[in-house]
């Protein structure tokens, strides 16, 4: 079994399937940003602490900076660009606007992806659940309160009968 130095991957990213050849060293964040031009996923700390690189792969939250693009073959990836349906924002995106949960906005993609993953796993999180789940995301502008409010507001709206 020889070691591969370039890997063909066929991921589905935000509903679109791609075929790409990547070197093993290419991370998921580099692949999304530089190969697919999806610059919504950011990088900052590069040691899995700040959360700005969060994406969802096969339903699980992943740090794009510390995951290999080579592992995306046959996987489904959701990034911040894939949260809205057409022009209709998700409940969480709408809530972020209303509670002023975004200021400089560089951390917003990460918080939205992790908030979405939380609500998928736990549709009615308590305030403590939200704070604990978002421990792996850093924001330097909002002081976190508006972000927590947004997640709780979105949960409330998602639970209300349409």
């Amino acid at each position: 079994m020889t070691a591969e130095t370039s890997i063909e991957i066929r991921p589905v990213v935000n509903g679109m399937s791609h075929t790409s050849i990547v070197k093993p060293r290419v991370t998921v964040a580099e692949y999304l940003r530089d190969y697919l031009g999806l610059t919504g996923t950011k990088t900052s700390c590069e040691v899995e602490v700040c959360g700005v690189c969060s994406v969802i792969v096969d339903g699980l939250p992943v740090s794009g900076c510390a995951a290999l693009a080579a592992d995306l073959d046959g996987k489904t990836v959701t990034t911040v660009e894939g949260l809205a349906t057409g022009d209709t924002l998700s409940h969480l995106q709408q809530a972020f606007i209303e509670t002023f949960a975004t200021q400089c906005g560089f951390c917003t993609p990460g918080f939205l992806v992790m908030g979405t993953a939380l609500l998928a796993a736990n549709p009615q999180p308590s305030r403590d659940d939200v704070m604990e789940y978002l421990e792996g995301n850093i924001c330097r502008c909002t002081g976190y309160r508006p972000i927590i409010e947004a997640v709780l507001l979105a949960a409330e709206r998602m639970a209300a009968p349409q």
Partner: protein
Amino acid sequence: MSVLPPFALHRPSTITEALEALSFDDMPLGGGTELLLAMRMRMLRPDSLVNIKNIPELHTLEIDGDHLVIGGAVTHQTAAEHPLVVDQLPILRRVLLEVGNPRIRASGTLAGNLIFAEPKSDVIPILLALDATVTLVSSRGPRNMTIDELILGPYYAAREPDELLSEIRIPLGRVLRAVYLKYQTMERPTVGVAALDHDSDGDVVRRVVIGAATELPVRHDFSPGEPIEGKSIAETMEIVPDIAGSERYKRHVVAIYVDRALAALDREERA
């Protein structure tokens, strides 16, 4: 922006294939939550990585006799949510839910955590407290060892370069009650204390394992009713000063958290 150094990738689907590829310069890759960071910092520059995530046997999580067996590719989250862990080893679940953050828990593996031997690991102290053992497989056959024997020093596990940690075995039915308390102000804990009452065939032992404050976790066993004082335990420890605090500060925090963990243990009903 920093990047990973160049490396090739092996993607074996069986343990045998993985073993053929492993060497000092061809390292096993599970979640990569610690390995890839060390590579990015140029602390490690393997020629290739051996991705073990596609090997079915390494994903087992089952009961074997009176042991819980966790495969080498099982992640913290998968183990924490698995019915067998929820029922049989709730303390392990509670500790796993304290590891890193949701992304690290979803990718990082217990075996990878053990092999990387980060001195501030949450997983190592609790597995030490639970008398877990590990199996290291290689072309020379399997080796079994305790956590004590596996963890030699900071970032230094007794795994030979061509060995793979295939499973973790944890004895069941011994824990009467257990707690894990940690004090953490940064990415890694300043101190973590696992305390449990342990009944191995009749004699109950109260065990305290303190992680993160020293190069190796510190374990103390006490007979029931024996007075335990955090301060006297902390005084004997070779505390490592670092960004999380000076030696004096940490010794003080260790003493407090040992006492708090023991007080919590007295109130605790859950195993």
